[in-house]
C-alpha cells in the first residue's frame, strides 16, 4: 500500500459544547478510493468537515501529502488541491448551473478557460447539466442538484476529493455513470474519500474501507475483505444483505 495522501491521527472535534469525534485515526492512500461507512450520526460528515477545516479539530493531527493542515484555513486546504462535496450539496441556488461551475473552476476567469474535454466528459456523464446550463441551480431537481455538486468537484483536476453521500437521490443509471467516473478519476491520479450509505455502490468502487461508529473509526481495511465477510458487515453496518440487492 502506497504512502497515505491524507492521514488523521487521534482527531477530536467539538461542536459547541458537544464532543463529536473521539480520536479518529484514518489513512487515505494516494490514488485510490477509500469508503467511509457508518450509521447515522456516526460522525462521517463531521470527519469530512474537520478535514476541510470547516470544524476545527480540538486535538490530533491531520496531514495532507506530508504537510500538517490541522490548523489551516479552509481556503488554503482547498487550494492545496482538495475538493469537497458536502452532504447538503452546497449549491448556490441563485446562480445558474454555469456560474456554479465557473466558481468551482478556480483557475478560470471565464468558462473559455475551462478544459472543454473535461466539460464534455461531465456532460456525458450528467446530461442534465448541459440541458439546464443556464438555469438557476435552485430550480434543479434533487438528483440534478446532486449531479451539479459532484460536477463542481471534478471540473478541474484535484488531488483529493471528499465526497459526502453522492448517490442519494440519484437514479440507478446515473449512479452507474458516477461509478464509471470515479474509476476514471482514480486512473487519473485522484484520491477519493467517499462517504456512503449505499453499500452496493460502495462495494463496486472502494479499494479501502473505514467504518465509523460513535465518533471513532472502528474498522479499516481492504474493501474486498469486508465485501466477503457478511458477518463483519452485519456487525459493523447492521446489514442483512438479504434485504438489499
Amino acid at each position, binding site marked *: 500500500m502506497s504512502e497515505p495522501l491524507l492521514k488523521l491521527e487521534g482527531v477530536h472535534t467539538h461542536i459547541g459544547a458537544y464532543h463529536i469525534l473521539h480520536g479518529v485515526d484514518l489513512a487515505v492512500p494516494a490514488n485510490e478510493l477509500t469508503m467511509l461507512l457508518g450509521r447515522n450520526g456516526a460522525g462521517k460528515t463531521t470527519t469530512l468537515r474537520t478535514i*476541510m477545516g*470547516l470544524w476545527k479539530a480540538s486535538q490530533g493531527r491531520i496531514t495532507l501529502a506530508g504537510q500538517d493542515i490541522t490548523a489551516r*484555513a*479552509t*481556503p488554503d486546504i*482547498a*487550494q492545496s488541491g482538495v*475538493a*469537497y462535496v*458536502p452532504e447538503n450539496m*452546497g449549491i*448556490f*441556488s*441563485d*446562480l445558474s448551473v454555469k*456560474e*456554479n461551475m*465557473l*466558481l*468551482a473552476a*478556480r483557475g478560470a*476567469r471565464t468558462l473559455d478557460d475551462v478544459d472543454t474535454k473535461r466539460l464534455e466528459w461531465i456532460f456525458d456523464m450528467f446530461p442534465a447539466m448541459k440541458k439546464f446550463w443556464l438555469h*438557476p441551480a*435552485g430550480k434543479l431537481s434533487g438528483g440534478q442538484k446532486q449531479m451539479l455538486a459532484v460536477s*463542481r468537484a471534478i471540473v478541474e483536476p484535484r488531488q483529493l476529493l471528499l465526497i459526502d453521500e453522492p448517490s442519494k437521490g440519484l437514479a440507478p443509471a446515473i449512479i452507474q455513470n458516477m461509478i464509471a467516473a470515479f474509476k476514471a478519476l482514480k486512473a487519473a491520479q485522484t484520491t477519493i474519500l467517499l462517504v456512503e450509505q449505499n453499500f452496493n455502490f460502495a462495494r463496486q468502487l472502494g479499494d479501502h474501507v473505514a467504518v465509523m461508529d460513535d465518533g471513532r473509526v472502528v474498522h479499516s481495511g481492504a474493501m474486498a475483505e469486508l465485501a466477503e465477510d457478511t458477518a463483519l458487515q452485519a456487525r459493523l453496518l447492521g446489514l442483512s444483505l438479504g434485504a438489499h440487492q
Partner: protein
Amino acid sequence: MSFLKDFDWRPVALVPLLAALALPAVGSPSTWLTLTVAGLAMGLIVFIIASGLTLVFGLMDVLNFGHGVFIALGAFVAVSVFGGLNAYAIADSFWLNLVALVPAMLAAMAVAGALGLVFERVIVRPVYGQHLKQILITMGGMIIGEELIKVIWGPGQLALPLPETLRGSFLIGDASIEKYRLLAVAVGLTVFAAMVWTLNRTKVGLLIRAGVQDREMVESLGYRIHRLFVGVFVAGSALAGLGGVMWGLYQQTVLPQMGAQVNVLIFIVIIIGGLGSTLGALVGALLVGLMANYTGFLAPKVALFSNIALMVAILLWRPQGVYPVANR
C-alpha cells in the same frame, strides 16, 4: 449577440418613457429640457452615492444603515482638501480647478475606504448574515461616526463652494444646464462603467453572491471570501466617499447629518434596482431623479411622496425590483 437578445430592456425603457410622458404634462419644451437634464444629472449623483450601497447591501447582503456616514465623511474631507487647495479651486481655469477637485475626490475615497476597513472589522464582521443586528450595529456605527465628524469639524454646516469654472450654466435657448451637473454625469457614468466591468467581467460579483448564500461552500472551493468581503466593503465605502464629494459640491454645503438625510433615498434606489444590480441601481436613480423634478414642478406636494410611490409601483410590477439579482 445572445446577450442583446436575452437582455431585458423594459426597465431601461422606463426612463425615456417617463421623460416622454412628462413632456406634455410640463408643456414648455425648454422647461422640460431643463428639468430632464437636471433630473438625469441628479439621478447620476444619487447613483454615485447609492453605488457603494448596491455592493454592500445588494450583493453582500449587509443591511448597512451606516452607509451615510461615509458619504458625510467624504464631503467633509473634501471641505478640508478644498481649504488647503483653495487657490486652485478659485482659479479661473478648468484644469487648475481639477487640481483641487481630483485630490479632494481621491482623499475622500481614501479616507472613507479606510474608515470602511475599520467599520468592517469592528462593526460588521460579527454580524454577517444577521440582518437585525446589522441594522442596529451599523446604525450605532453611523451615530458614532457622525458624532466624531462633529468633534473634528464642528457641529454646524460648512460651505463647500464649487470650483470657479464649474459654476453657472450652459444656456440652450431658454433651457439652462448647470455645468456642475455635466461633471456629475461624467463621473456617474464612469463609476457605472467601472462597476459593470468589475462585476460582470470578473468573478467578483459571482463570488459575492455565492458567498452570501453559503460562505462555507465558497471557502471550500478555495476562495478567501473574507478578504473579498473586506475588499468589497472598502470599495463600497470609498464609493460613498466619492458620492459625498459629489453630493456636497452639489449642495455646496456639508452637514454632519447629510448622510442620514439621504439614507432612505438610497435605500429606495437600490430596492427599485433589485438589490445588487448595478444597472438596476442606475435605472432606479434616474427614475427617482426625474420623478422628483417632474413632480416637483407639476405638483410639489406630491413630490414629497413621489419616491415612495415610485417604489411601491415598481414593486407591484416586479416584486423584487427591476433587475432582481438574488432570490432574497
